[in-house]
């Protein structure tokens, strides 16, 4: 169940806006932030809050890259595989990450900390190869840099 303060805050925003559907993505993000991913129960709650059918919310949830309909790790890594990052070593970075985390693309580490996903151009072509972890950008990736980033996140977890 959603904590009362989150529900009330979302309801306050929904009441204040002329067209509540405009908040559909914001509501999904808020529920995802609480549950870790958009579970079936969360999807139902989003629909109730927004006055939409669960199917209408599902249509959106499965469409967007940053809405996760399945459980993900505490840290979601979106590794850019579009042209410039690919030219600057995406494949070797991907292979290094997969080995380091012992997962395949799409997988989550056994300790539940990291999910590794490929993503299309994230708009950091001046810092390629680049990735996002929980929406924070890391550029000019090298194996050494990746080691340091992952160690730091592990320590903070």
């Amino acid at each position, binding site marked *: 169940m959603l904590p009362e303060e989150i529900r009330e805050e979302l309801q306050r925003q929904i009441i204040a806006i002329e067209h509540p559907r405009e908040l559909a*993505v914001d509501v999904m993000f808020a529920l995802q932030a609480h549950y870790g991913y958009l579970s079936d129960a969360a999807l139902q709650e989003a629909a109730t809050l927004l006055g939409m059918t669960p199917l209408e919310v599902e249509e959106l949830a499965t*469409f967007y*890259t940053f809405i996760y309909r399945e459980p993900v790790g505490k840290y979601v890594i979106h590794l850019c*595989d*579009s042209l*410039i990052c690919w*030219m600057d070593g995406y494949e070797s970075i991907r292979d290094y990450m997969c080995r380091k985390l012992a997962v395949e693309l799409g997988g989550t580490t056994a300790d539940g900390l990291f999910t590794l996903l490929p993503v*299309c151009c994230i*708009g950091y*072509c001046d810092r390629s190869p680049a990735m996002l972890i929980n929406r924070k950008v890391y550029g000019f990736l090298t194996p050494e840099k990746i080691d340091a980033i992952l160690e730091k996140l592990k320590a903070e977890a």
Partner: protein
Amino acid sequence: MPKDYPQVLFQNRKPDRINTLDEYRQSGGYSVLARVLEEGSHAAVKQQIFDAVLLGRGGAAFPAGMKMETIADDAPFPRYIVCNADEMEPGTFKDRVLIHADPHMLIEGMIITGYGILADKGLVFIRPEYENAAKILEREIQVAREAGYLGQNILGSEYSLDIVVHRSGGRYICGEVTAQLNALMGKRPNPKQPPPYPTEKGLWDRPTLVNNVETLACVPHIIRNGADWFKSLALTDGAAGTKIFCVSGHVNRPGCYELPLGVHLSEIIEEHAGGMRNDAAFKACLPGGASTRFMPKQFYDIEMDFGSLKKEGHRLGTGAIMIFDHTTCMVATALNLIEFFARESCGWCTPCREGLPYIRDLLARIEAGEGEEAFIPALEGMSRHLGNAYCAFAPGAAAPVESLMTYFGDEVREHIAQKKCPFKGSRKNKVAILGVEAPGRQGAKT
């Protein structure tokens, strides 16, 4: 040293932090908004943007003034102005840099343009990868509100406008105007085919003007300095203004450079972007994002403006120039682009949903050394069929493939004849790695 050109959009750009409201005001910011509201002629705003020949900087190069004109004087209210900060065209990062450099320039541009159509509400549609930019905008919009530039009766005038930041869930098609409006309304972001155009029936069926970040940032300067000044910024006849070129790929200094429209491609590469990396030879570039055509060496000296490229059958797109050196395999490059498009297709219409995986399969097999001569007409034919799609996504996706066949057909044939990628030796495993299995695979062989 690279040539110094007038910096308009980047005049306040700093290496380490954003420009504050006070600093923006010191550079003349918001002075023209006060003047415009005092004069009280929204028609004059439209006229000046029209006269300045400001072409949309988001990729389509549609005249911004003409788009405003399509909102009739007696069009219903409320009216909306939307800033398209989705910027998901691969290679493009200028809007991010612009927002981080000088957010108030965009905010003032939105208010003035909004006034031009008497908009009641402004929305910034921003991609989730740009969360920092979204936070900056939310904070600075509040600063502008407190300073009286937004909200009820702006600067004591009759005009009221507020702006909200709308975060996207992240998908390339949301950059397409009609898809973006669906996204804003909490609907599945499929494109819609006009008419009605968004300026007639857009957000919640009301008149809606959608402009790119860079386009809107040009507006305060046009109103302040005049249409003739704006036109004089460009180096070539018919072009107007500066352009933020974001350069990436095999150059020494990838980054955003504000240069006059009409500057030579060779100058951008050699002087501003620091020349080719490792002293390699220039082979080709994409002049304006993933959905423009490859430009090979014969265009190395071309003047980079919308008209000059159009005359040669090319498009300037977003001005995101991706540079490839002589070691680049163009088949693999096109394959990477098609991987992107195939993944990001919204799936609404058949040519795009089915055609792109088909092309991806053919290119993957050519790259893996399993190509056949019959693939060439199949690729050419399928690229043409993509033109039958519902929106501009699929024709854009076809551009790199069609230009690959046009300019680098010999390289494609070399892959087929040698049964390997001549740039990387045998890559037999490539198809297995990609897991490509497109429908119609049998058909491609015959």
